[in-house]
């Protein structure tokens, strides 16, 4: 019975709507679909979405690993609060994050006014998109790397030291490479989330076509124009890429389990 409930619910809520999307893009015909998907504005929007998501995921890898390390290894006042705050981007509605970041980074905002004299414009540029996506993706790397870091056996570090490795060598050649699968998974999750992100980005992006217009926004715009075929085509392209990402994440984990004896 449980299986029945599960299956019918899945079919009703996930499978039928998604197949609707697939069906609607397939009736477009290949040439129409291709024309819509390679429309210049669409291509630019996709490029911006993927480019900024990639940059933000990279930033999150660097700082996420440092943050996870600090949370796992060191004791300092307020650590518990910092640990809890890492999850804020999960819990805070994206629209709230969007308007808060925009207000902060606008030329007259707290941070924007500090950057303006340096000639750095964040809000209403692709850089603003990256900032928003860093916020949104922050928990992914930390939360995938943290549990694996906690499991590192102290003996492994001591072993490296007895073999003559200094602390830097131990970290860079023993500890971090051992975390590679977790870091890659965290990166892929943050990247996938960033590509599809909408609420936190649209406020700060400025939404200039060809410059700072993200793909999800373009879908919304096409919908508002009742241009369903175009919206469907963009969505289909994004969906395919999401599936590929999902597949890649699963591959990383399978590879990691096979080789290192642990999944992430």
């Amino acid at each position, binding site marked *: 019975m*449980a*299986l029945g*409930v*599960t299956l019918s*619910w*899945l079919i009703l*809520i*996930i499978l039928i*709507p998604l197949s609707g*999307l697939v069906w*609607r893009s397939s009736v477009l015909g290949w040439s129409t679909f291709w024309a819509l998907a390679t429309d210049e504005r669409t291509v630019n929007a996709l490029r911006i979405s993927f480019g900024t998501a990639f940059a933000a995921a990279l930033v999150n890898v660097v700082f996420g690993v*440092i*943050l996870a*390390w*600090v949370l796992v290894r060191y*004791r*300092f006042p307020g650590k*518990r609060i*910092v640990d*809890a705050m890492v999850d*804020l981007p*999960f*819990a*805070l*509605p*994206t*629209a*709230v994050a969007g*308007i*808060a970041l925009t*207000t*902060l980074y606008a030329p007259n*905002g*707290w*941070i924007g006014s500090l950057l303006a004299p340096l000639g750095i414009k964040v809000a209403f540029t692709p850089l603003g998109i990256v900032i928003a996506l*860093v916020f949104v993706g922050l928990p992914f790397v930390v*939360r*995938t790397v943290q*549990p694996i870091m906690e499991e590192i056996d102290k*003996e492994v570090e*001591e072993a490296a030291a*007895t073999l003559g490795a200094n*602390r830097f060598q*131990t970290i860079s050649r023993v500890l971090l490479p051992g975390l590679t699968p977790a870091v890659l998974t*965290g990166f892929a*999750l943050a990247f996938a*989330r960033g590509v*599809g*992100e*909408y*609420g936190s980005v649209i*406020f700060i992006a400025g939404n200039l076509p060809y410059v700072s217009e993200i793909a*999800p926004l373009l*879908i919304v715009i096409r*919908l508002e124009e009742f241009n*369903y075929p175009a919206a469907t085509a963009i*969505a289909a392209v*994004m969906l395919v890429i999401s*599936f590929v990402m999902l597949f890649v994440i*699963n591959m990383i984990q399978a590879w990691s389990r096979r080789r290192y004896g642990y999944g992430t």
Partner: protein
Amino acid sequence: MAHEIPDPVGHHGTSEMVRSATSESRLARYVLIGIALCFVGLFVVVPLASVFTEAMRNGPGEFLTVLADPETFSAIRLTLIVAVIAVPLNVVFGVSAAWAIAKFEFKGKAFLTTLIDLPFSVSPVISGLVFILLFGSHSLLGPWLQSHGIQILFAVPGIVLATVFVTFPFVARELIPLMQEQGTSDEEAALSLGASGWQTFWYVTLPNIKWGLLYGVLLCNARAMGEFGAVSVVSGHIRGLTNTMPLQVEILYNEYNFVAAFAVATLLALLALVTLVLKSLLEMKFSEQIAASRRH
């Protein structure tokens, strides 16, 4: 035997003449902590703080006046209604899905697990779009729905559907690893003692998973109340009727009514903070009952 002697100082002990082999220099430690704190401060704490200060920009009086606005009030009401419908639906589904996946062997299990995860990796805008394509006036179902006077899009049912879609995985994701870990021996014992399927679930399975379930509900609820993209696509933005709180935030903000926008945003931010506190408490007290799916 490596740890046969308890080491109360921890391996970052003080006053050591030769630095321990497994810790960084004090300077490196401070630098790393500094970087981490700056990062969290800049990207999390400051934006959060700005929500509250912006809302209070013109004093608490105006903050309260704005909140008392009837449109805001109806947005709060709609958000609560949507959560009250969507969360229980996903609890029922989540528990049965986790039960099916954890306690039975069947073909296509891996595919099923992937499907459950799917809404996590789909853009919220696409989550909304699929319902437009399904129920919109151009769709197969559209004309039929219209002739029978059933309104799904740009109305509460559409918003609920989109929310259910988006929050679909939370409960199931939380429970699957937990139930898999616990295995089936407890249930088999209960069944062997003559308990019925429902009794087994009610008296054996449920008590074992209750904290994990609560954790999943918490995350599911936070997302249900805060969802923006998917709901935005299907709601039609009809003021006072189909605007949830996040949508109300957007509308107010786009009208340059910043104080009002941030006032509604504070309510959502408070919801997020309460969620985080409860989540941390659950993690502290019942860490073993809360599965490793913290990353979602």
